[in-house]
């Protein structure tokens, strides 16, 4: 019997102050603990009986995970909240799609609590932060024991609710390269209402050279088992003179490339249809901003 008003089981609760202590605790619990950032996904999963950790390792007392450095390029500590991203003027200007994704997160309360790291590690194909970060070429740094690795975010997701993170691994940082000059970007999301998860979302990053689209990245959310880069559609625009019929062609290509499902939020058919419109709008917005 599920009761979302309580957490029915007790667990151990530890609060490390350094990254080193956090991974040591995880090793001590042999991977049977959960790292907690904002808690908005983890505690829901525990209430629903989908996660039963022996212990929660609360990360919020680790200052070394809470920072946002602009250097050029971004270095984002995993505890950075959507609210902090949304309010950062530099991100709004140079990484507009990331700003728009943070803004599109369901509610002010979730934006205040929820972190970028938690959003990614939850592994949802609907994660708002994933499409823009992948489109900007982000990499994520992860630590387990004394081993460390950095991988492209594009390769991080492996299935619905699944990522390459091992049970003992901690994501510590998101690194986003500096966009080239003349780059514009946009994130467009469709939910039933604005305070909802995405039925479909798309991030587009375009590098412009006069009338030509020099480079293009396009990543969709909620249309496949993982946040999906639609490379066929990217190729239609790349290196070509920007024209309306090419945008049309790219948006049709996207609806061929995606593999949506029927679920409580939408049908596969609707997702394919509406993707064409969202992609068209996002491409045009990104293009206009690339000046």
């Amino acid at each position, binding site marked *: 019997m599920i009761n979302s008003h309580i957490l029915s089981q*007790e667990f151990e609760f530890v609060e490390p102050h350094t990254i080193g202590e956090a991974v040591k605790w995880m090793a001590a619990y042999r991977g049977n603990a959960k790292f907690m950032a904002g808690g908005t996904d983890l505690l829901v999963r525990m209430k629903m009986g989908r996660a039963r950790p022996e212990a929660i390792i609360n990360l919020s007392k680790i200052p070394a995970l809470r920072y946002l450095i602009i250097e050029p390029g971004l270095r984002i500590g995993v505890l950075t909240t959507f609210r902090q991203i949304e309010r950062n003027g530099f991100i709004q200007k140079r990484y507009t799609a990331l700003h728009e994704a943070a803004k599109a997160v369901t509610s002010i309360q979730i934006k205040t609590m929820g972190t970028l790291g938690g959003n990614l590690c939850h592994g949802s194909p609907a994660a708002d932060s994933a499409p823009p970060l992948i489109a900007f070429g982000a990499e994520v740094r992860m630590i387990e024991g004394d081993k460390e690795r950095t991988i492209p975010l594009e390769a991080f997701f492996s299935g619905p609710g699944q990522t390459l993170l091992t049970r003992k691994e901690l994501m510590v940082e998101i690194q986003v390269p500096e966009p080239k000059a003349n780059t514009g970007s946009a994130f467009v999301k469709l939910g039933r209402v604005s305070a909802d998860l995405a039925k479909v979302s798309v991030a587009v990053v375009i590098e412009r050279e006069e009338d030509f689209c020099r480079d293009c990245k396009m990543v969709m959310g909620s249309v496949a088992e993982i946040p999906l880069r639609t490379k066929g559609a990217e190729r239609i625009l790349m290196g070509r003179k920007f024209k309306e019929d090419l945008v049309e062609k790219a948006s049709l290509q996207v609806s061929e490339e995606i593999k949506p499902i029927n679920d409580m939020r939408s049908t596969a058919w609707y997702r394919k249809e509406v993707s064409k419109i969202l992609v068209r709008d996002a491409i045009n917005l990104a293009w206009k901003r690339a000046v």
Partner: protein
Amino acid sequence: MKKQITLTVNGVKRELFVASNELLLNVLRDHLELTGAKYGCGIGECGSCTVLLDGEPILACLTLAMAVDGSDVVTIEGISGSDGRLHPVQESFLNHGAVQCGFCTPGLILTGKALLDENPQPTEGEIREYIRGNLCRCTGYTQIVKAIKDSSVKGKA
């Protein structure tokens, strides 16, 4: 596993013994008998458990009590003046009849207060965007938005 924590709730320092699986909302409602914050959905969709944690609106039903040890919490019971005078947002909700069943009201008033604290003259669009995570299933928002707008600096001028 139980642990002692300290919370400043509505300006009063409280020492509490809590279990690991106790949520901030359980502590407020069951230990401190502050039943203003409501249990709605329990999964972060309705906003009726909204309280201010160090001044920011958060969901008490998705917050572990132990994780906020040392924090400052403000609930609907704590925003009126010490002389019992209502907060301007509360006053405005009354004037506009922005309450029907009342279940969403504490969360909406606190979210409205948080908005006005950071942006004293919000537009209607800004108000609607800020309160979109607080669901009201009876009054239809029109009076609620008007009430928040009216209690802003601009509304008074």
